[in-house]
């Protein structure tokens, strides 16, 4: 369990994380979502004791990260930027980490095998592809068999097979009863992996709820209707108090499911060519919610040199 209480980080006069409170529970995958610069990585660095909070606390199972005698046994972390020396072999990197926390050397071979790097363990990591580097980062996170796993952008640079592997792995870690805290920019991937979401924007928590609730609240699904008698159908549905929007040739109806819309139109003898329930995606919901808190928006260009 990870708990943040009034967690704040200021750099000079810029507030990166603004008094956030949230908790991440065991047994499920909690996704950490937010636009670039929203404060995700800063929050994760404070969680790992790398950055000192300006105010507030963040604890893992009730203790500060720095208070664990063998932190790798408590929290496994994959950091976004590669925290590796390019001249060291993968095996040596894991060896020193294992040594620092008093873990047996054979655990190194176990995790190398788990992430599929056994054959290249002796190679210098500078020669690794992005995907191999990510696998090594995941090996580091699993080294101490920790009850809490924090993964910052774990699928970055992975091929489709690797992405699927990370998804299966994170789901399995959560199913084993571990606390899994995961950030990713890939919405479709997050939608498949996470059960719960913490959404951050401009250093504040915008949402902390289940995946299903989040989508339902922030991007409603609708029924797509196509008809040669579009105008009449729209009038009919509106007369029933439904919300109807016209998009080109189609109508988007909210407030009823597809079957009910079909029956309503059928009873009045109008023709239908298409009737589809369109479920909104996590991406839609995320875009709706964060539209106002994107730091670098393509549309609102700040002049060069202007203060952010």
């Amino acid at each position, binding site marked *: 369990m990870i708990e943040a209480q009034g967690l704040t980080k200021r750099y000079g006069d810029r507030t990166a994380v603004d008094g956030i409170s949230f908790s991440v529970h065991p047994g499920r995958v909690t996704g950490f979502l937010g636009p670039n610069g929203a404060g995700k990585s800063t929050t994760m660095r404070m969680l790992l004791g790398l950055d000192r909070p300006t105010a507030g606390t963040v604890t893992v199972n009730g203790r500060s990260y720095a208070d664990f005698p063998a*932190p790798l046994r408590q929290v496994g972390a994959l950091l976004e930027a590669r925290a590796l020396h390019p001249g060291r072999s993968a095996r040596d990197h894991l060896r020193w980490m294992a040594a620092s926390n008093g873990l047996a050397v054979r655990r190194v071979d176990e995790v190398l095998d788990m992430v599929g790097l056994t054959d290249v363990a002796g190679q210098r990591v500078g020669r690794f592809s992005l995907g191999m580097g990510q696998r090594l980062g995941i090996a580091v996170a699993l080294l101490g068999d920790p009850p809490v796993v924090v993964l910052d952008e774990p699928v970055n640079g992975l091929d489709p097979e690797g992405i699927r592997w990370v998804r299966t792995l994170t789901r399995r870690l959560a199913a084993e009863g571990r606390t899994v805290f995961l950030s990713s920019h890939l919405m479709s991937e997050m939608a498949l992996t996470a059960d719960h979401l913490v959404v951050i924007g401009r250093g504040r928590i915008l949402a902390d709820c289940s995946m299903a609730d989040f989508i339902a609240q922030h991007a409603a699904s609708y029924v797509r209707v196509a008809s040669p008698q579009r105008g009449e159908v729209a009038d009919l549905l509106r007369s029933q108090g439904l919300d109807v929007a016209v998009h080109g040739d189609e109508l988007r109806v909210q407030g009823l499911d597809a079957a009910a819309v079909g029956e309503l139109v059928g009873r009045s003898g109008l023709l239908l060519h298409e009737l589809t329930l369109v479920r909104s995606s996590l991406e839609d919901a995320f875009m709706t919610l964060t539209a106002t808190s994107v730091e670098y928006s393509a549309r609102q260009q700040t002049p060069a040199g202007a203060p952010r």
Partner: protein
Amino acid sequence: MIDTVALDPHRNVPGVRRPGFTHTLHAEWIKFWSVRSTAWSIVALVVLGAGLTVLVCATSADDLADGSAGEAAGSFITWGMTIAQITAIVLGSLVVTGEYGTGMIRATLTATPHRARVLAAKALVLTGTLFVVGTVTAVLGYLGGNWFLEQEGIGLGLGDDGVLRALLGSGLYMAGIGLFAAAVGLLVRHTAAALSIVLALILVLGNMVVLLPGAWGEWATKLMPGNAGGAVATPVSFNPNLLDPWVGFGVFCAELAAVGLIGYLVFRRRDA
């Protein structure tokens, strides 16, 4: 609330539950030896330190013997160490700045959040290695260089004034100057910057402050870290106006402690 499976409390990665300083030390030892720059620096230290000593003794032995050099043989018997210190500075700096340049420092501090412990382990690995390698190098240089001096009848015995002290002092000074570079590296977090600062301080400024007027120049020369600390590494200094070897080394240790303390205080507070 979802039903959660409790994580098996009996799952166990073999090893100790409460690792201590020896584990941090072991980790730093593995880190130190698993990058190529360490081996290269040490080979360079031995080759330069012993090789140049032998070379200057071989080429100067006759001038030293007939007095035309105007210097004591004792000034030459560990001469290579004055050049070899550059490799100790490079190694010391890289031990710290190498971690900042690559982002490794974040892995180091997630593994061992106790920052003082990390620094102590790094310092011990670095100084221990440099002391041993520095002493061995000085002994090798002495054995090789003294062979040429003996040919001219001006060989130095281990029991001669300052010789044994200079051999051990070479190891001490290599350890000290490497640690000094590491401390500066901790402050500037950048390899090129750390090297420039330390090399300029030791090799350039150390020889230029004598240009300051009067007693200022005299004392600045005595107190510059390379001059104060380096005297212990040679039986006879070229410069007769330096502090006594052990007094100088004490001053050097005090300077080292000051820079090290500032480095630690900054490191403790700074975000990684």
